[in-house]
């Protein structure tokens, strides 16, 4: 077999777990990009991000339980630009995971597996996530802005 760039990736393990050099079957790189690929791996990543964000949310709850000093520290972190960015990322990831899980439950029932349906639902899930994210973030920002201004002014 002629030597080409792919040989650099011919690292495998045999059944005993010993390293072995051998050709690998065609993998991700031989396929043309499709939206469904990105949405599939995106759902996994969104699940991980959503879990990590939930961990931060519980840390925030424990700060609330600990007392005013711990809570003030947590709120300083949450209202810091980086904290807001993390909150935004957590929100978008969780919303996408929610939308994608509805698709998965529909697939589990055996429906919407046709190629055209997969493509159409994929685009819909992107629009649904974007719409939900924009709407909810706008509502959150508007509500916190109004409540912060009201009683203190």
């Amino acid at each position, binding site marked *: 077999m002629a030597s080409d760039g792919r040989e650099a990736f011919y690292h495998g393990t045999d059944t005993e777990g010993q390293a072995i050099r051998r050709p690998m079957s065609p993998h991700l790189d031989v396929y043309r990009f499709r939206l469904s690929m990105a949405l599939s791996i995106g759902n*996994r990543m969104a*699940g*991980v991000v959503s*879990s990590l964000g939930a961990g931060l949310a519980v840390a925030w709850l424990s700060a*609330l339980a600990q007392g005013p000093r711990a*809570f003030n520290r947590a709120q300083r972190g949450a209202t810091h630009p980086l904290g807001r960015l993390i909150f935004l990322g957590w929100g978008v990831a969780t919303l996408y995971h929610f939308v994608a899980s509805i698709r998965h*439950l529909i697939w589990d029932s055996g429906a919407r597996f046709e190629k055209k349906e997969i493509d159409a639902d994929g685009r819909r899930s992107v629009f649904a996530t974007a719409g939900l994210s924009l709407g*909810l973030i706008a509502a*959150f920002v508007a509500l916190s*802005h109004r409540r912060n201004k009201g009683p203190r002014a």
Partner: protein
Amino acid sequence: MSRLSDMRTPLARAKGLGGLQDGAEHWTAERVSALLLGPLSIWGVAQILRLAGRDRDAILAWAGRVQNAAPLGLLIALTGRHAQLGLEVIASDYSRGWRRVWLRLVIRLSTLLFVALGCASLARILMTRTTEAK
């Protein structure tokens, strides 16, 4: 024995074949926790909007009410369980051997710790509210 475990041959069950050893039950548990988390997450988002911009006293008063603390506790417990199941699927897909065993242990412990911290915090808030009310 459940119908799902009957779908595997006795030998497959005894040997614990597959990345997760009990894939059928794991798959079902992931779906059931997802179905329960659906309405609870919508409730959670509504509560975040309800509390946006409120001060500590208002948030404590909210968390101190049983009708809020109960669904919040359930949300935390189910999130921990669903995260454990999902992360285990990812770990079993991309790791093998001892690394897989260690990853699974780390996932189980950290998601358990997540639920414990959430419930302990909620309990403390509820107790503080009760003491203040007296």
